[in-house]
């Protein structure tokens, strides 16, 4: 096992850890707000559930990048490649966009989802618009995901 492989593994882990943390926080705060709405008006369950789940995607994006990185360095197949220090650092760097942006956007999308759940509580028929605001935040997670995927994919091992 070389230092490069360790660094690459660190990158894959960070993608999963940080993006997952962001999502966990976002889904948690949105879930608290959603519980409040459902306790008053159980009919809104489906709508607020959708809004609660919106910040959950960052964690999945992190998993995605983590998985691609793991399979790239051969850990999934059980035969890890002997990476040079530079290659390992490159994989680590490639994982960083979704890791960091996933954390920040997951947290903030959660907060936006809380406000959107507020809209649904007051005006259930405005659900379509309420859904848009948290979806806007997600754009940046998607852009980060894109760069991470392309970068991990492009690194020669």
């Amino acid at each position, binding site marked *: 096992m070389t230092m490069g492989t360790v660094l690459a593994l660190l990158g894959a882990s960070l993608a999963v850890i940080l993006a997952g943390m962001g999502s966990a926080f976002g889904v948690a705060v949105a879930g608290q707000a959603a519980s409040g709405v459902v306790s008053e008006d159980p009919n809104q369950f489906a709508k607020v559930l959708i809004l609660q789940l919106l910040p959950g*995607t960052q964690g999945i994006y992190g998993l995605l990048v983590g998985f691609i990185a793991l399979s790239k360095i051969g850990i999934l197949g059980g035969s890890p490649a002997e990476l040079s220090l530079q290659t390992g650092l490159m994989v680590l760097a490639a994982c960083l966009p979704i890791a960091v942006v996933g954390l920040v956007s997951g947290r903030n999308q959660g907060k936006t989802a809380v406000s959107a759940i507020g809209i649904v509580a007051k005006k259930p028929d405005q659900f379509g618009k309420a859904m848009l605001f948290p979806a806007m935040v997600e754009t940046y997670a998607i852009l980060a995901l894109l760069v991470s995927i392309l970068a991990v994919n492009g690194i020669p091992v």
Partner: protein
Amino acid sequence: MAIVSMKKLQICAMKKNRKAVLEMLQSMGVVEIETESPEEGVFKKMNTTTPRTQLDKHVQNTDNALEILNTYVPEKKGFLSSLEGKREITKDEIDRINKIHHQVNRKVYKILDIEKEINACDADIAKFEASIEELVPWLNMDIPINTVETKKTKVFIGSVGPEYTEESIYEALETKVPDLSGYTVQVISRDKDATCIVCFCINEEAEDFSDALRSIGYTRISSFSHRTPADRIQKFRNEIAEREEKKKEAISKLEEFNEERKNLEILSDYYTIRSDKYKVLGGLLQSESTFLITGYIPARDEERITKALNEKFDLLLEITDVPEDETPPIGLSNNKFFSAGEGVLTSFGLPGKKEFDPTAAMTICYIILFGLMLSDAAYGFIVFLACFIVLNKYKKMGEGLKKTLSLFMYCGLSTLFWGVLFGGYFGDLVTVVSRVFFHKEVTIKPLWFAPLDDPMKMLIVSLCIGLLHLFFGLALKGYMCIRDKDFVGLISDVVSWFMLIIGLVMMLMPTTLFESISSMSFSFSPMVKNISYGLAIGGAVIIFLMSGRSNKNPVVRLALGLYDLYNITGWLSDLLSYSRLLALGLATGVIAQVINQMGSMMGDSVFGVIVFILVFIIGHTFNMAINLLGAYVHTCRLQYVEFFGKFYEGGGREFTPFMEKTKYVEIKEKN
């Protein structure tokens, strides 16, 4: 693809017919009645608050009664019974209820009374249980609770702090009143809250003893009874049993009302309909002997309503075109396929006054984009099959739900299509199963290419689809300009942007940057290059000069033009936004692969197969659910923000005809 054309309707009729006319309009359900017009001259509004409040209360009571029946005498219902829709009844049923509604309403009150009885029993039971709780520590005491004295002694029954034991009480009393001698202390029980004691003291020393006892925190037992604690607990237990019995009896009385359930449902709706009628009646202008109705009616129903009204009543009916200065409400009318997307459109906003109904265009784009995001043939087929079965099994479900489900049914088909193109069947299930369990690698080749192997190609595909989607939106704006004969607008807001964007794209294509991303190389002849420069510059100049044309001041106008040119960055971000097609498509595929890999970890054995099946079912259900949600949200976003941003604002008011709005039953017209 159309907005229902509306006409304005005015009725003037004799006041004696007002309820009959309203009832007819209500049962036809095609007229939206204006109730906000101000009073003027001899025309006044009538106050209908009292009958309405009364009726609303009846509705509420009936709904409560039904709720009570559902709680205590639940009806057996299937898992998907909420999809079954409302029960159909004939007009005769309503007439029958109309005749006997007082009787049925009395039953409502009876049900409410029975519930009160049940609640009273529950409250009593809770109270008795609390009392028993209090007495349990005293269970070992075999004298009546209210004993205060014997012939020669006083008796103290009560509690001191939990820290005291029999010895420590004696000790404490010894130090407080050392000269007393004629007393005994007995601890009945001791727990974390209190020590329960019984003390006897001879009459002569009782007063001093009592003071001493109080000084160590003694309080007398709070319950009073001539029974021993055990007897009293027994008595409470009997009371509880009695209440339980009574409650059971009450519930069995409720069971007798089970057959009334259907009548109660009709009754609730009957009262709702009447309440709505009074609400509209209160908004009508009435003179001493006539009344006025103004409202909107779809042109297609004009003849039917004219005939029906004139046949039955003497009245003045006028149906005219909607005046220019009024904004009629919006009703959508699309064929069966396109109407599936109406729900998505409505949650953004109905078309405004000058706009057209983009449902058809949007529905097609929605289905295509949704399929691209989910992009797994097996998932698509499951979604399609589930929606198809539910749609066919429950034909009477609500209109909105039906539209949503048909939309997802089409989306499922589209997902199937893209899944076959990109070779995703539960991810790489076929490959994994054949490799692990049959030891032979079998792969279903994608019809086009696998995005995971070539993400750059998929990115270019996504952006191309995005560009087409945005151009389609812009073209629809052009369509509106042509429809309104606004050719200046067409050139300066639509054609100019087409020129600029196409020019820029053509300039980008031969560059090395584009080649490195897409690994496709284009080399254009100088002629084509010049055309692309011409298009881009021409478009930019038109935008610069014309975009601020509504402003008279030439400097401001050019400044506005320059600002609008800055919107090119908006186009760039809109376009990049379509990269989510790639991201979400990959997310589905990769997570599916992770699941398959996890499932196959136990290898080829009986145990391995069981694990694989379990992981397969749980994992793919989860993946499908989370990606369905993602595809739904992000397709909506692409429609609302990127697509509608090019041409559509919305802001129309929904057409809400005066009709029989029911909760439980649907009234069928007699044929």
